[in-house]
């Protein structure tokens, strides 16, 4: 600093307990005109005020109580500080001499945030808005609209999603994951569909694919796409279990669950991106992919598809308990949280669904197999 050492105490009788500080290079701004005022500085120890005199100005000086003086935060540069008084939001003292600061006890005391009630109200509104939107409004609208999407639109949506999933599951830089195309195996799947009484041969008919991947899962997409992973077929010990899963997925298709789901995520993803901002924008994309693969439906949609499957299986003279058998094997093999997570395995109410499938079995009914043993062998070899 270029300022001289402290000037001697005032001896002119203005204040016996006052201490004068150099106002050299300091300036005062009154918060009205952008004009710098030269200052004289005096700390009155009795009255506990800082007297800022404004020589050469038409204005009288000002008195700031020392315990109500605050320093501006995060100021760049090492020379000088800027002071303000809590009683005047506009006036500023640019202080060059830091010696004075030791008389100011609460330089860094913060004021409580203003309008906390209002802030809390809007925070609540924001949380409620997002919750209502994602939890109620978007699903409600999606459910209504899903029934109006024409079949061609659904097929396009399903096709696009199917391609995305195949690309996401393939390693980077490689072509999309293969579908299995062993003709005998596909014929066995066809026989299974016919056995379940699913509509065949039309444009809107269900299309079944097997993806060459070890994941134990199956899912339905808009436009009647039902997709099995090879791992699912490997894990089954009887064709009836595959038939049960297929009937369940066809149930989703019939109830248009995949279309609803796609519309819901179109509405919800934008909101999530909005909330997290560029800070975690990429995470929203990851979330989208995750959602596509492990498409988890609401509990109601799952039991709806289960009910559809029981009826279809019953009509095909296959025991509905096959669905429960399949669930049980998956649960025993993979547990609830570990390993490859399929939406069957991770579903919390799996046990009740297993029990339910066994409960709908008619006493003394004669159940058979959905396809012949030869067809079952062909299906097991569909990816070879």
């Amino acid at each position, binding site marked *: 600093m270029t300022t001289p050492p402290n000037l001697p105490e005032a001896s002119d009788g203005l204040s016996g307990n006052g201490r004068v500080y150099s106002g050299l290079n300091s300036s005062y701004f009154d918060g009205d005109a952008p004009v710098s005022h030269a200052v004289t500085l005096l700390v009155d120890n009795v009255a506990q005020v800082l007297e800022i005199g404004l020589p050469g100005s038409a204005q009288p*000086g000002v008195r700031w109580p020392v315990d109500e003086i605050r320093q*501006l935060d995060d*100021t760049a*540069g090492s020379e000088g500080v800027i002071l303000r008084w809590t009683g005047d939001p506009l006036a500023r003292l640019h202080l060059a001499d830091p010696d004075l600061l030791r008389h100011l006890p609460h330089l860094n005391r913060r004021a409580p945030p203003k*309008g906390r009630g209002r802030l809390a109200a809007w925070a609540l509104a*924001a949380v409620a808005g997002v919750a209502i*939107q994602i939890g109620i409004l978007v699903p409600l609208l999606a459910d209504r609209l899903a029934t*109006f999407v024409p079949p061609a639109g659904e097929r396009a949506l399903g096709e696009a999603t199917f391609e995305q999933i195949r690309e996401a599951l393939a390693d980077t830089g490689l072509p999309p994951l293969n579908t299995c195309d062993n003709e005998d195996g596909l014929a066995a799947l066809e026989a299974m569909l016919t056995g379940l009484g699913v509509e065949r041969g039309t444009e809107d008919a269900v299309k079944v694919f097997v993806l060459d991947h070890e994941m134990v899962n199956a899912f339905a997409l808009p436009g009647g796409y039902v997709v099995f992973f090879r791992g699912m077929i490997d894990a089954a010990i009887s064709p009836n279990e595959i038939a049960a899963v297929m009937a369940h997925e066809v149930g989703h298709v019939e109830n248009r669950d995949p279309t609803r789901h796609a519309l819901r995520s179109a509405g919800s993803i934008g909101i999530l991106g909005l909330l997290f901002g560029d800070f*975690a924008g990429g995470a929203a994309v990851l979330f989208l992919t995750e959602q596509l693969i492990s498409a988890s439906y609401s509990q109601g949609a799952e039991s709806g598809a289960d009910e559809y499957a029981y009826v279809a299986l019953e009509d095909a003279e296959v025991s509905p308990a096959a669905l429960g058998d399949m669930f049980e094997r998956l649960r025993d093999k993979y547990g609830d949280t570990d390993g490859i997570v399929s939406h069957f395995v991770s579903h919390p109410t799996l046990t009740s669904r297993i029990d339910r499938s066994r409960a709908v079995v008619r006493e003394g009914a004669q159940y058979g197999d959905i396809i012949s043993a030869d067809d079952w062998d062909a299906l097991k070899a569909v990816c070879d």
Partner: protein
Amino acid sequence: MPAGWHHGASRVTTSLTDIAPPPVPEKGLDVWFVGSRSALFWLALKSGFWTVLTLGFYRFWMKTRLRRWYWSSIRPGGHPLEYVGDPWEKLLGFFIAVVILTFYIGIVNLLLMFVSFSLFQSSFVGYSASFLGVIPVWFYAQYRARRYVLARTRWRGVRFGLEKGAWGYAWRALVHWLITICSLGLLWPRMTFWLEKYKTDRTYFGSAKLVQGGRWPMLYRAAIPFAVAVLMSGLIVVWLVWLDPLIPNSANPFGDIFSELESAEEFGFALFGWDRPMRLLLLIPASVLLIYGAVHYRFVTKRILADHKHSDGVRLHSSLNGLRVSMIYVLGTTIAYSILVVGLLAIVLLVFGLLGPEAFLDEQLGMGDPLGDFPKWLAIGIIAVSYLSLFLFWGVLHHVFVTFPLMRHMALTLSLHNVAGLAQVSQRARDEFAEAEGFAEALDLGAAI
């Protein structure tokens, strides 16, 4: 510090009896810049760290603190600018914007996707419409954010301000963009000028209104380097494709080159069959020149526009150097990236050392998953923390090596000429502005500071 005041006073006066003569008006003011890089580094790192820890909520405080720091570094006539924005009001503004925008974005996106699939059988139309629909809101938010920042900026205790007019700005910006696109970019300077004039003519310092003078054709000279770069790239492409083709005797030279460029594997082989493929290296200086041209245009137009800004009795002058700014951009970004890459390599080596080389090999062969033995939440947690830290570090480096030198150069090259009018300025009323810059925050605008 402003000199020329009489500092003989050892006598303390709290009331003045004699009326002093009015102060002699200053002739002109230079702008100083006092902040140091290391102080900024620690401030950015510290506040960025809290932002990561609080899952992003601290970003309102981070932004406020960084702005306070930058503003107080910039000192026209030795007196710092002051940023008085409050993090709590930013948080409130963000909540308000979320409430309004969730309904817009959620419901509108859903309807658009529905229409897109029902009528056009593809998601593309829906996504495009959704994107186009956000553009006016984007301009609106940009203007509102500027209004908020100006309303919270003071110099010598006097507030800046921007008049209302965000929707006016949004539709003008849309029309100007349309004209610019239709004219293949030839009328870009016209857009730059008129949009800047719209904003400047609504800007106040206290009671003083700022005016943007000049005419739009004056900005063409800032576009010369970019025009040269475009011309040069065009000539190179014409030479390589039609005049002396890379692929001799091809019926469709352009399409063939692109189809071969697309598949990287074929590209390697194709190069051998091409005629003097080294000529492709000419595209490197051309693209460097394009980047320089773009930065030059952006900042030299700022200089020209600043030179034509004035208020009653006050003139602005800028001597900003386009080449210098481009160097700051290129060098700063390069330095920031290099440090980031070195840091990433260090992390990879650390993982390599901890898990052993087999983990990587297995991953490559698709035999195992190095994180497979961990519980899923832990793996996700580690990935999330690394992702956020990377984001944080990139932000800090960008502040230190790009934003800081840019601000410094822009501040130091700016000066006020003929400031006699300052004495006539008086304070303006506070612009309350409940939603602060919430819309810009929600739509990710103005991420710099």
